[in-house]
């Protein structure tokens, strides 16, 4: 190798000055450069389109749950209030998924033999948890607090969509940072009276007789919604 390297070295010109000469492997630079340019030109649009696609933001994400619990039946047809099961939503950051006991309050008598409810019954008898799959999964560096939103006039359906029409829950909003900020910058577009929070078919014009912007601005004052600086500050959500 050493000997060959020495052989390849450019000859020293006779007048003593040296000039630069491309080594033979430089011939490959041109195709390599072309390939790289093509790669970059495909990579960037691909990256952007993937990052912004609903697949990435998880809209429509509908995992299979251990029990095919139908929100349409419970919240829609039977009109059970959200807070009957998600009982901690007004007090805590986490809207509790109900303990098995809550299911069995009714299902001890109703559909007590249904094979679909077998995981619930076995959980009740042996005390192990039902492993529900999380649908709305925020990154761990986001501090989301349900009670802060519920008590400040943001309805369930604003983020979760028409749960009362979903057989099995799927994600209806992107739940991305941009989506969060849309509302944090203009909360008046989404505020509603606190007694209408769990109402799925809330319509300000039909039910309160006022346009959303007008109602929202009034609620923004009466509910003491924070200033835009606070609402969009990094530490409001990333603590």
């Amino acid at each position, binding site marked *: 190798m050493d000997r060959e390297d020495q052989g390849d070295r450019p000859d020293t010109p006779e007048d003593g000055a040296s000039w630069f000469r491309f080594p033979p492997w430089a011939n490959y630079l041109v195709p390599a450069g072309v390939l790289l340019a093509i790669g970059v030109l495909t990579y960037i649009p691909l*990256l952007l389109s*993937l990052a912004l696609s609903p697949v990435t933001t*998880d809209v429509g994400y509908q*995992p299979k749950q251990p029990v095919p619990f139908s929100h349409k039946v419970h919240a829609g047809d039977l009109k059970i209030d959200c807070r009957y099961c998600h009982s*901690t939503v007004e*007090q*805590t*950051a*986490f809207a*509790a*998924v*109900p*303990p*098995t*006991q809550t299911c069995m309050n009714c299902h001890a008598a109703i559909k007590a033999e249904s094979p679909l409810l077998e995981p619930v019954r076995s*959980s*009740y008898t*042996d*005390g*192990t*948890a*039902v*492993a*529900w*799959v*999380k649908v709305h*999964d925020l990154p761990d560096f986001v501090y989301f607090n349900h009670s802060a939103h519920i008590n400040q006039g943001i309805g369930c359906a604003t983020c979760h969509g028409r749960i009362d029409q979903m057989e099995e829950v799927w994600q209806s909003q992107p739940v991305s940072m941009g989506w969060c900020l849309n509302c944090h910058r203009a909360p008046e577009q989404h505020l509603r009276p606190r007694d209408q929070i769990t109402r799925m078919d809330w319509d300000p014009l039909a039910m309160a007789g006022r346009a959303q912007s007008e109602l929202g601005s009034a609620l923004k004052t009466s509910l003491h919604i924070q200033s835009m600086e606070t609402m969009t500050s990094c530490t409001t959500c990333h603590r």
Partner: protein
Amino acid sequence: MSQVAAENDAADRSGWWRGLEELASAPEVKAWLEKEYPGVAWRGRDGTDRRDFLRLMAASLALGGFTLTGCRRWPREEIRPHAAQPEGTAPGVPLHYATMFELDGVATGLLAKSYDGRPVKIEGNPLHPGSLGAADALMQASVLELYDPERSRAVLWRDPAGGPALQPSEKSWPEFDLFFGARCRKLRERQGAGLAVLAQPSGSPTWQRLREEFQVSLPKACWFEYQPFTHSSEYEGSRSAWGRVLRPQYRLDKASVIAAFDADPLGTHPARLRLARDWAAGRHNVDQGTCNRLYVVEPGFTITGSVADCRLAVAPSAVARCVGWLAARWGLIDGVPASITAREHQFLERLANDLEAARGAGVVLAGPAQSAEVHQLVHAINHRLGNPATTIGYSEEPLAAASGNSGSITGLSRLLEGNVVTTLVVVGGNPVFDGPADAPLRLGAGAGREFAAIHLSLHDNETSHECEWSVPAAHFLECWGDGRGWDGTHTLQQPLIQPLFGGRSQIGFLAGILGRGPDGRDLVRTTFNRLFPAAQDADWDKALHDGLVADSQFAQVDPGAPKVNRAVLLDETGGRELRLAIDHKVHDGRFANNAWLQELPDPLTKLAWDNAVMISPADAGALGLQQGQVVRLSAAGGESRVLVEAAVYILPGHADGCVTLPAGYGRKLGGHVGAGVGFGCGPLRTTANPWTVADVIVEKTGRHYPLAITQMHHIAPSIADVALDRRLGKKGEPGLLVHEALFSEFQHDSHAVHGHARMPCIRRRSLTRLWCPRHDTAGAWRST
């Protein structure tokens, strides 16, 4: 350190300085300040410096960002709600429980915060008289100890025939119970003959009840207690003064003159949190011109010494002669110590006048390292000055009752040599590491010896490695228990979590030896019912909620006049003495594997991760020692001299003629964090000298040991000047922290000292609401 303070700019600015190096403006400090980030040693062994490190990290992050994250799937997460929601809980809402922490036999009430069933934070229990809402570093860090992955995780069996290199084999609890249950049954049939228990002193009423039952039902068994930092001289002094062992209950808030002789009431005393609060209460009225005065005579530098108004640094034996001089002054003993120096004389004269003037409102304390004679004299001095009426109360010492009818570790050492013991149960502790060198424990089985040693321990430590069985203990946050505060308050310990590694509590284990069920709650409740026969279920609930039983202090006793041995002469002067001190971080070594504590700088030396032998600047100069130089300490022991090596820390304010070495370091099997940190005192500790080793020779070695000292951090002038000026103020002007004024100005206007400075406003926290087992207090469980 040369005296060049005058031309130093840092010290000149305000007269305040932060370290000897700064005072002397040593060239190392200047060079150090010129570095970009002082104190941050980036260049490692492989030659990677900070810039290289950041460059590599940036490159790898970029690579990771381009390749790895894009391919990563969003993790599928599950929500597993309770099958049956426990009453009063909501997911994600922390709950607080009252529990306790026992150290050296004294319980301190705590509030533990639990987040979804996981203990995450410790604070003091405001209701507990030993805490008043405060928790010290050891208590705070106990949360990390709970989750220490190197805790003993399973029952380990070491084949006695296998030798030290053999790997232990993992056994299950049923396997252990099969062996141990059969062994205990056999021992019970023989009334305990052949059984020995070695435990640490504990004030737990349940523990003491079980121990008494143990001694009744197994009369031939032997009970031994040992802790490295013994209080036996205190007990001895009290016994010779009154014929019984009494525990002094100091009321520092009522004292106007406090004299601490080699005592550290604010730093290492078992009731330190309460004593510090009381002492501070006596200083709140400084603006009215009445303020307690603290005199400290001590060899090393303690937290108490650091806040003393008048401090005298003398060697341990000289502390004794100072007490002797005081006693002689009030005619309590005949011989006046002749070796008292002029400096000591001047100090003691002032102290004596102050104590005289404050008759009935003074306190004289002596530390556990001082001899029984000193303690006896201190009791006599307090009595002569009429202090016991107001500033000192006495109660029976519950920990002495145990040591009274049980043997010492020396007795056990002899017993083990004699092949009489067939079963040794070591409950907690680590006597192989911290036991005295002249009482070695022969824990191996050996040929033809029917012997099994069982160690119940939080960690598989030095002692466990020599025992046949190593059994995991439960952490205090995992099990039931009880204890007594320094003042005797009955304190309850309730578990916040199931034992993570299946450990057993000490009381449960002892109950197992007696053939009882190990249910800790039952054991604690039985004790509670016996101590408070009138208590109802509601009282138990309340005690559990509060963490203590109100008004359950020890009964105060009036011991009368203490006897004095008039002939005692405390006048010996010897060679250089070595003081073994309790460490503020690892205590006696048991907290060595706690990285929070190791990382914490020592309150006085600002040393992190190591200990060092502390020496006065004058002695260091005489011996030609530099900071961080390794010295050899040797003392007479057996036929040859025993020695240990340790790095030197030059501590201004340390007494000349003695050195101090905090114990608890140099662990061999301390875990990943604790092993090999610092310097052990190993062979220097003997039964005769648990605290102070006489005639120690300090020799220089050529080696140097890098000590991590945070004292001089953040003094870089460009960054810190503004902040420093704000805190210290200009010369003669009050700063944020340091307020100074001339006494004449202060007398004219007591607020002059504060100037425009405003003390940071401390908001009083509202009381944390605790989990409550009662139904009629709905809502009280939720934390705020």
